[in-house]
C-alpha cells in the first residue's frame, strides 16, 4: 500500500459532428431591404 498507478482503458470520445450540420437557412433575402436606403432617404 498504496497501490501503484496503472493505465486503464477508457471509452474513446465521440463528438456529435452532425449537430454542426443542422443549420439555419439564409434569411438575407427575407429581411427588410438594406439599411443604406434609410440613410440615403435622410439626405434626399
Amino acid at each position, binding site marked *: 500500500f498504496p497501490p501503484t498507478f496503472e493505465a486503464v482503458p477508457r*471509452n*474513446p*470520445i*465521440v*463528438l*456529435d*459532428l*452532425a*449537430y*454542426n*450540420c*443542422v*443549420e*439555419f*437557412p439564409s*434569411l438575407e433575402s*427575407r*429581411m*427588410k*431591404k438594406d439599411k443604406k436606403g434609410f440613410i440615403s432617404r435622410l439626405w434626399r
Partner: protein
Amino acid sequence: MAPKPKDKPKPSPSPSQPPPPIEDLFTSLNKHIQRSEYKQAVKVADQVLGIAPGDEDAIRCKVVALIKGDSIEDALTTIQSARNLPTDFSFFKAYCLYRQNKLDEALDSLKSKERSTPTMLLESQILYRQGKMDACADIYQKLQKSNVESLEINAVASLVAGGRASEVQGTLD
C-alpha cells in the same frame, strides 16, 4: 390648408393592430438566431407562420431552433406537421431520431437522401451507437478529405472501439 405634422399626433396602436410586416419578423428572427436565442426564435417563427402558414424558411428556422434548443420532440412534431411542404426535412428528422436513440428509424430517414457530408457524418454516428464499428470507420475513411473539423476524433474512436487501435497511427499520418 394642410395641418402641420406636429398637430397631428400618431394614434397610439390599437389592440387590433395589423401584424408587423413579414420582413420585420424575419429581421427579428435573424437577430435571435445570431444571438443563439432559440426560444425567442421559435416564437417569432410561429408569428411568421401565423401570417404565412407554410412559409418554408420560417418552418425550417423553427425546426432548427427547436433542435438547437434541445426540444427534439417538438422538432419532430413540427417536421411531421410540415410533411405536405416540398421542403425535405429527412436529414433533420434523422438527426432528431438519432438524438432519441431510435437508430433504425434514423437510418431509414437518411436512406431517401443523397449521400453528402452531413448525411455521412450522421450515418457514421448512428453506426457507432449500433456497434457497427467497421462500417463506421469506412465512412470516416471516405470523409477524410472533406475538411470536417475534429473528424479525426471520431475516426480514431471508431477504430479503437472496433479493436483496430493499431491502425490509428496510420490514419492520423
